[in-house]
């Protein structure tokens, strides 16, 4: 058996932090994605421009740079805003909050495109039927549109989640205690770099496999209403 020099528990704790970060970013990203897609399909030109600018910029710059910008930038922006309200204390943005913001923004930009495609593929008749039944726009969205969009968007979102899971490693650069940083700590005390990074790699691989199984379960569940051919 491989000897982890007692760092096994540490790595598992790191895995929990990695998962927490991934789930929180997923939540933020899904909301941003839905908002972005709605804005892209909106009849207001300004909203379309904002959504277009958001997806172009976020998808064009490296995720690591997004993490660094949010981590180092958010502090100065928040302090400038707080300063306007007469608050002069030092505000620190934690690595976790910065990570959720940066990865959520990234996920949201890609999810915008996935949701836009899914929203566009809902037949017009579905909208008309909902309106004919007297549903308001919000109820129509929750009861008719969202469940169908969810089913169409799931495979795309599943892929994005796998990318997100791997991107969480970047937040270790700004000091979050995830798998990657725990591995760094273990390496600096044991000098067995290959061993610990390989263990970290296989932990990510395990998380990836679990997510794949879960996504395929969700896909089956979401399309249970469809006739199988």
């Amino acid at each position, binding site marked *: 058996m491989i000897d982890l020099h007692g760092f096994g528990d540490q790595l598992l704790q790191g895995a929990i932090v990695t998962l927490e970060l991934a789930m929180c970013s997923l939540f933020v990203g899904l909301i941003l994605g839905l908002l972005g897609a709605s804005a892209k399909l909106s009849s207001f030109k300004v909203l379309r421009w904002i959504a277009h600018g958001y997806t172009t910029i976020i998808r*064009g*710059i490296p995720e690591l740079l997004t993490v660094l910008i949010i981590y*180092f930038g958010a502090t100065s922006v928040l302090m400038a805003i707080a300063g306007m309200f007469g608050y002069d204390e030092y505000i620190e943005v934690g690595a976790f909050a910065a990570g959720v913001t940066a990865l959520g923004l990234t996920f949201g930009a890609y999810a915008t495109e996935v949701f836009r495609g899914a929203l566009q593929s809902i037949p017009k008749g579905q909208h008309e039927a909902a309106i004919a039944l007297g549903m308001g726009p919000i109820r129509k969205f929750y009861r008719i549109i969202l469940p169908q969009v969810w089913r169409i968007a799931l495979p795309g979102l599943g892929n994005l989640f796998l990318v997100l899971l*791997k991107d969480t*490693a970047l937040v270790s650069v700004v000091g979050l205690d995830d798998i990657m940083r725990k591995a760094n700590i273990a390496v600096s005390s044991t000098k067995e770099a290959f061993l610990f*990074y*390989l263990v970290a*790699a296989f932990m*990510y691989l395990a998380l990836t*496999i679990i997510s794949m199984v879960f996504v395929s379960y969700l896909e089956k569940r979401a399309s249970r209403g469809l006739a199988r051919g």
Partner: protein
Amino acid sequence: MDFSVVVEYFPRLLEGAWVSIQLVMISIVLGGIFALPIALARISPVAWIRAIPFAYIFFFRGTPLLVQIFLVYYGASQFDVVRESVLWPILKEPYWCAIIAFTLNTSAYTAEIFRGAIQAIPQGEVEACKVIGMTKTQMYRRVLLPRAFGIVLPAYGNEIILMLKGSALASTITILDLTGMARTIIARTYTPMEIFLAAGAIYLVISIVIIAIFRQIEQRQNRYLGTLSIKVPDKG
């Protein structure tokens, strides 16, 4: 915010950008060369030949690029065999370690793209090749690979952009690429927002240039599809 620092350090940022572009170009070319045999092995009819590239692709696509870079840069030097070997002068340089990690990573993704493209070619064309009596090599060289190249282009363009974004990770092993240079400048000037935003803008410009180049190649490669590029003469 004071953007005069950006003006002052802009030449340094461009130096970093050039390193990033080099890293991406070398890795993409090497990755493309490795990807072809991997993709061909991946669609082999023999099960155990298929299994090796499958495991390789699964590992490199399922783990973060950051782990892969650290495995090559810090991991390889753990072994005395590596430190005493002839490869050590290469493996102790962060620049070459980054290129090795990026090449391995991108070859896994590219192999999947190639595989998809080869399999997307209609079976009828394969049969047609066999009917006229082409050998397997001729079939790949004359029909399947050129066809796959046309199909592959959009996905390949995306892969290069992903590689460009991934190249920012080179900064974690002390390489002064665009991100690394930005971090070094910030350590001196304490102006994170200005410099990082400028670096982001440069990445954005490089991405846009790559997209534009690929549009051109795509139009050229798929020109036999016609119709789209036919110009209707203006009236009068």
